[in-house]
């Protein structure tokens, strides 16, 4: 790994200032960034750790909204969100393995937008608001394709506001070697509708399956999905599964998530 200057600010303002340096990059839990730096896919001159910023840590429950600090680890969400939003806690508990969950963070996962990561499904599947140092971005406008988001250079996610659904669950078909989702579906039922977000399947990253949303809005049951299939056109095809296989998994995981949420 190439060497770099390491800085660890204690406020968002100081982090933003540090990121203004040439070739500076933010570091959250590092569970993706550090391996990619070892592989020299990434070689920042300055690495700005976001793990020492108190205002980016922790979980706040207010009415039907759960706000999670962007530097909060998956392990913490898995335990501390369990009472208020079990669907989100259940998703966090399935990311990686225990050691990864003790370091990896919500903000890091969303900013990286890996097409097979779990958290983007929860953010898009709830219509969450991504709060940055500069603005608030609706999840529907945030994910712009594989490893691409609406974040500007040097913009940091500081927290995410999740509207708490009446019912929700995450159906994950595990890719057992990487522990990413081979396909994962987050289903959330609200008073005014249902959202279904799919990760791990599309070449364009996380997406909403609108046909399933419409079917579930009138009848929130696995039976309501019978006969529905997701088109395989844009699906990822690799040695783990063909495009058609992933399209099939989307329907299966959606049904399982609905059953788990019921």
């Amino acid at each position, binding site marked *: *790994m*190439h*060497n*770099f*200057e*390491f800085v*660890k600010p204690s406020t968002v303002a100081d982090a933003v200032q540090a990121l203004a340096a040439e070739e500076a990059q933010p*570091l959250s839990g*590092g*569970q993706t960034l*550090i*391996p990619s*730096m*070892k592989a020299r896919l990434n070689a920042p001159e300055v*690495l700005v*750790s976001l*793990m020492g910023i108190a205002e980016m840590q922790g979980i706040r429950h207010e009415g039907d909204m759960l706000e999670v600090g962007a530097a909060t680890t998956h*392990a913490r969400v898995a335990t501390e969100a369990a009472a208020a939003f079990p669907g989100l806690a259940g998703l966090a508990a399935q990311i*990686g*393995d*225990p*050691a*990864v969950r*003790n*370091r990896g963070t919500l903000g890091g996962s969303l900013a990286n937008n890996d097409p097979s990561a779990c958290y983007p499904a929860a953010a898009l599947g709830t219509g969450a608001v991504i709060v940055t140092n500069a603005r608030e971005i609706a999840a529907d406008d945030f994910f712009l394709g594989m490893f691409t988001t609406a974040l500007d250079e040097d913009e940091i996610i500081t927290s995410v506001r999740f509207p708490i659904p009446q019912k929700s669950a995450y159906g994950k078909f595990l890719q057992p*070697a990487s*522990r990413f989702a081979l396909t994962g579906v987050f289903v959330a039922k609200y008073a005014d509708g249902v959202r279904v977000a799919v990760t791990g399947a599309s070449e364009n990253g996380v997406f909403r399956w609108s046909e399933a949303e419409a079917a579930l809005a009138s009848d929130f049951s696995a039976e309501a999905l019978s006969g529905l299939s997701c088109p395989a056109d844009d699906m990822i095809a690799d040695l783990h599964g063909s495009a058609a296989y992933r399209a099939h998994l989307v329907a299966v995981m959606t049904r399982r998530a609905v059953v788990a949420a019921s």
Partner: protein
Amino acid sequence: MPRVSMKVNGKPMAAEAEGRTLLSAYLREGLGLTGTHVGCDTSQCGACVVLVDGAAVKACTAFAADLDGAEVTTIEGMANADGSLGRIQQAFQDYHGLQCGFCTPGMVMSTAALLAENPKPTEDEVRHYLEGNICRCTGYQNIVRAVMAASGQDTTALAAE
């Protein structure tokens, strides 16, 4: 080069670390604690797991400088004060929970984290918790047995696969 300080196995320690110095390198090369093994160095095998402020962490996937001031427990901190094997280590020996032994430091540290959270785990919970620790020798059966024994539970009921 900046100095990074940590409390390691209960003792204050310090060593120089570049920005890129991984916790695994800091422990092994900076502090001479070579019990933490680096297996894959790609975050997959779990041989390098140590406890950072009580939580299991892959030492190859964290920068030492990011953990300045942390409390770290490594395999060297798992023995009893008189140097005899600690409870988890003894169970791994008694139940033949290792063959080549390379993955064992990580297995023992993950087990320590598990039992701190969940003192009497079921077999399924043990297997689930250790899913980030890869062993290429044992087939895991005796590792699970050792963890169950270390938690004071009967191991005779475990499936004899």
